[in-house]
């Protein structure tokens, strides 16, 4: 007979496998800290830095079989207006962002609001998932992300019954994000900080991934380090990067792109080939690395998992 017992140690008390595997580096890092008093002031030893490998279990349930986009393309062709408006700007200016130390304030309508240190976020059981990423500009990539369901984090702060939405806020700091500096004419495309939002049921959906890495390594700065959200059935801009705050709200958050161009970018922004952007078609997309455009799939191919969230809704009106 099999007797199921609670493990004597809680998962959170076990030395993280990643730390365990990197114990030599950890010691080397500690030694370096001891030798460099100025660095020692920076505080506790930190997890793997940018470019370092990040351990994660492959989750076969969320594994797109399409070939992943080359790492070079996924890290050199980005929309991250905080670093500049050109696709090459994030890779060029990414070094300005300091992803450590970092913390994420999770509050609003929560029973147990909490500030999560990035090291604490990295201790959640990490998994690798291969998702399709569809940009609203009609191009797409396939990316192996590393993270864990956002639901796991939200459950820890215990959302109140009143909470209906989740608001995400990206760091605002023009020193680290040169794109946030006022331009010569004083106007900017969007209002800073970048704000995005999801309905609570969308945020709690198992597909919604709080993401800390990609391609087996720590999330590069130009891809939203140190922590971002990935919502694969929505256009890329819904997946807010470099998060400093996650807030539970009763009211639907006003998102950055909604404020900038409400007739073009709605709150939902689900990938939908039948609802065109007012200025271009969404019926097809160019997969980066491919020559001929491919047809865009409803909910970016995740219809069987998320269509029920929108049962009875007019998706043309709720674009």
């Amino acid at each position, binding site marked *: 007979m099999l007797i199921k017992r609670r493990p004597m140690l809680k998962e959170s008390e076990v030395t993280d496998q990643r730390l365990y595997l990197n114990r030599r580096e950890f010691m080397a890092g500690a030694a370096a800290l001891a030798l460099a008093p100025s660095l020692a002031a920076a505080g506790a030893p930190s997890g793997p830095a940018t470019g370092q490998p990040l351990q994660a279990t492959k989750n076969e349930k969320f594994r797109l079989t399409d070939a992943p986009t080359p790492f070079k393309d996924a890290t050199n062709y980005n*929309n991250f207006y905080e670093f500049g408006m050109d696709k090459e700007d994030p890779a060029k200016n990414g070094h300005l962002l300091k992803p450590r130390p970092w913390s994420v304030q999770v509050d609003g309508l929560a029973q147990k609001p909490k500030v999560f240190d990035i090291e604490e976020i990295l201790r959640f059981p990490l998994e690798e998932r291969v998702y399709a990423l569809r940009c609203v500009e009609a191009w797409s990539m396939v990316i192996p992300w590393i993270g864990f369901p956002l639901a796991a984090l939200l459950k820890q702060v215990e959302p109140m019954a009143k909470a209906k939405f989740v608001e995400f806020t990206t760091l605002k700091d023009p020193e680290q994000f040169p794109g946030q500096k006022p331009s010569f004419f004083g106007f900017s495309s*969007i209002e800073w900080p970048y704000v995005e939002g999801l309905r609570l049921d969308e945020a709690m959906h198992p597909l919604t991934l709080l993401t800390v890495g990609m391609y087996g390594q720590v999330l590069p700065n130009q891809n939203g380090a140190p922590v971002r959200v990935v919502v694969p059935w929505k256009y890329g801009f819904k997946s807010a990067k470099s998060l400093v705050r996650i807030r539970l709200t009763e009211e639907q958050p006003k998102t950055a792109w909604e404020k900038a161009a409400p007739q073009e970018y709605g709150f939902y922004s689900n990938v939908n080939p039948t609802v065109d952007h007012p*200025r271009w078609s969404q019926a097809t997309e160019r997969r*980066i690395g491919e020559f001929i455009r491919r047809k865009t799939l409803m909910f970016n191919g995740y219809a069987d998992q998320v269509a029920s969230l929108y049962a009875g809704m007019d998706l043309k009106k709720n674009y």
Partner: protein
Amino acid sequence: MKRNARIAVKAGVWVLCLLPVSILAYLAATNDLGANPISFVTNWLGQWTFRLLLISLALTPLRILTGLAWPIILRRLLGLFTFFYACLHFCVWILIDHYFNWAQMAEDIIKRRYITVGMLALLCLIPLAITSTNGMVKRLGGVAWRRLHRLVYLIGVLAAFHFLWLSKGIRADAYLYTAILTLLLGMRVFDALRRRLRRRQSAVAARSVPA
């Protein structure tokens, strides 16, 4: 300007105008067009079409401001290169981006306003390119030819809207090009008004002279 100098200047302009497409060819050969090469090439060619258009539109204001008249001889060459880049830009879009998907292309031209105005601009460039030869100037006669070639102002405006409407956010370069275009066209208007005023004043002055 002496004949030799004119040939030298024109040769220089030829080389400069062929530079953007040569750089593109080099980037293509070294596999350096980035993650989305088709989009890169389309943007590159579109940007240079607009730049060349602005340069050709800058020659008259240059004369108004500085009295420097000889650069006008380069206007036809610059205009034809504008047309050349516009055609390349269009070909990449039609042949490579849509890959002969005629139905989708037709839909795009009608439904996307930035493509509608872009197509209009290209169509307007065609008669100007056709009538660019000395023979055509003679056949049409100076007045009719000049009137026809005022189409270039409309082309500029269409190009500006094409650029302003296609981007996701507010692009500084689209606004910069539009501002330059506005300045170049505005100077013509200002100059025309000033000349009309001066003509009227001299007419008044002529009348007030006692006979």
